[in-house]
């Protein structure tokens, strides 16, 4: 999943990176095929080149390796909302067919939720102000749902939805542990384009809480290369050594 997501980032892209899976994928891209990708974290670190993956969005490693460190108001105003970001790279707790994402509450009501999640962070403005958005998350019926419990950040543009000030194209690509979905201006919803090696289209549909549209010509995600796997393992091993935790490879 991380390798498939990393491949989505082309060299020279300016990418606003969320913490966790997005940060892992974005840094793997930088360490393999896209050394000149520009990574911006919401802590104000622009052009960060961390040797180990940060645990938080503002680890010292990000500041020390950045081209420049700006304030938080500045990063959201001059850099994100002004339209300087090519790709926003986000994670999510729940997603629907339009790429709307939920990171706020699960179950119950907003005031009395069953599970209270961390909330919006930078996502609502990243999702709409970046020229396009990639989302990375694990896929199951539990989090790929017909209707979100709460729309934290909006997805693909819908005609007549009153989103007049939306500037970017929204979530164009969703990368999961099973495959890759993308939206086009014609489809206006996520369409399965590629399945990972060893995964069937049926499995992906089974792990989706709505009737997932499938591309006419299904592709198979190319298997990870030795170079990609080695770079990912080294990155996780360095990170685990730095944070005193156990390396995980996804």
């Amino acid at each position: 999943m991380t390798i498939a997501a990393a491949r989505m980032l082309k060299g020279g892209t300016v990418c606003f990176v969320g913490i966790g899976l997005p940060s892992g994928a974005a840094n793997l891209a930088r360490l393999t095929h896209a050394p000149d990708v520009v990574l911006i974290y919401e802590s104000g670190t622009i052009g960060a080149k961390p040797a180990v993956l940060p645990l938080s969005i503002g680890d010292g490693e990000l500041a020390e390796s950045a081209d420049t460190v700006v304030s938080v108001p500045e990063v959201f105003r001059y850099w994100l909302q002004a339209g300087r970001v090519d790709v926003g790279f986000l994670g999510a707790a729940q997603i629907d067919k339009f790429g709307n994402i939920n990171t706020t509450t699960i179950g119950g009501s907003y005031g009395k939720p069953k599970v209270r999640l961390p909330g919006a962070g930078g996502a609502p403005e990243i999702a709409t102000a970046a020229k396009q958005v990639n989302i990375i998350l694990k896929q199951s019926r539990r989090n790929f749902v017909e209707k979100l419990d709460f729309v934290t950040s909006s997805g693909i543009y819908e005609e007549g939805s009153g989103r007049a000030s939306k500037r970017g194209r929204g979530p164009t690509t969703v990368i999961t542990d099973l495959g890759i979905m993308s939206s086009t201006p014609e489809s206006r919803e996520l369409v399965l384009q590629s399945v990972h090696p060893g995964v069937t289209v049926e499995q992906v549909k089974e792990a989706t809480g709505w009737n997932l549209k499938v591309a006419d010509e299904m592709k198979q995600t190319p298997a990870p290369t030795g170079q990609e796997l080695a770079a990912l393992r080294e990155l996780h091993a360095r990170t685990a050594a730095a944070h005193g935790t156990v390396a995980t490879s996804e």
Partner: protein
Amino acid sequence: MAELVTLREAVASLVRDGATMALEGFTHLIPFAAGHEVIRQGRRGLTLIRMTPDLIYDQMIGMGCASRLVFSWGGNPGVGSLHRFRDAIQAGWPAPLEIEEHSHADMAARYQAGASGLPFAVTRGYVGSDLPKQNLKIKFIECPFTGERLAATPAINPDVTVIHAQRADRAGNVLIYGIIGVQKEAALAAKRVIATVEEIVEDLQAPPNACVLPAWVVTCVCHVPEGARPSYAHGYYKRDNAFYVAWDEISRDRERFRQWMQRHVLSTADFAEYRRSVEADANMKSHA
């Protein structure tokens, strides 16, 4: 002019029950020592403002200091949930917690508006989000020049803002560097400012464009070495990521959390003693 006082004196004189209070620091330079002192002095009914509540607000909420929280992301970064924050919202423990929820871009803009003396902030925010349905402070206006629909939210002007910084000089000028977050805006938006610092120096040696809060906008400066631990101070010490991981376990259970806070925060006189208490526990574990 900033007064050089102890943290105990600063909190006692500037933080009242029911006050609106911001402790800022975006992952970096989080004012833990000041948060602990508020807990020790038993403040109640606070409106706590912070973009990323983090462990210090988890502790303050769990100890019953807050009745209201204004925030944009409430998690344990890279680890998972803030259990005390969740318990307060989901089950009202130890007291009901009213929440006012925004996005990061908006919170940053609201502090900027507060620092600018403007009544409200404007962002290209919340397009298509459900947040404005739950938070009635988020309104939409039409740009008088282009007709674009934009989000408007009221300025933040805390009674007190607390920040932690690397250095102050004897006059009380405060230097902050590295990830500077929203501290300058949060300080200039507030009626009173407490700055805890790693060092008091003769000469700040600040480059011309450095982020310096002049002494005349700071109310109190307190010398509290390592006062941001377990977060970090660029140039002084690294983030204690292992503690952030350990907190998940400590805070999960109400009773264990209370015992931990009693032992390390309520039973210690100040942050230096708290640090010794926590380190003694850590050493015992590593030799077990």
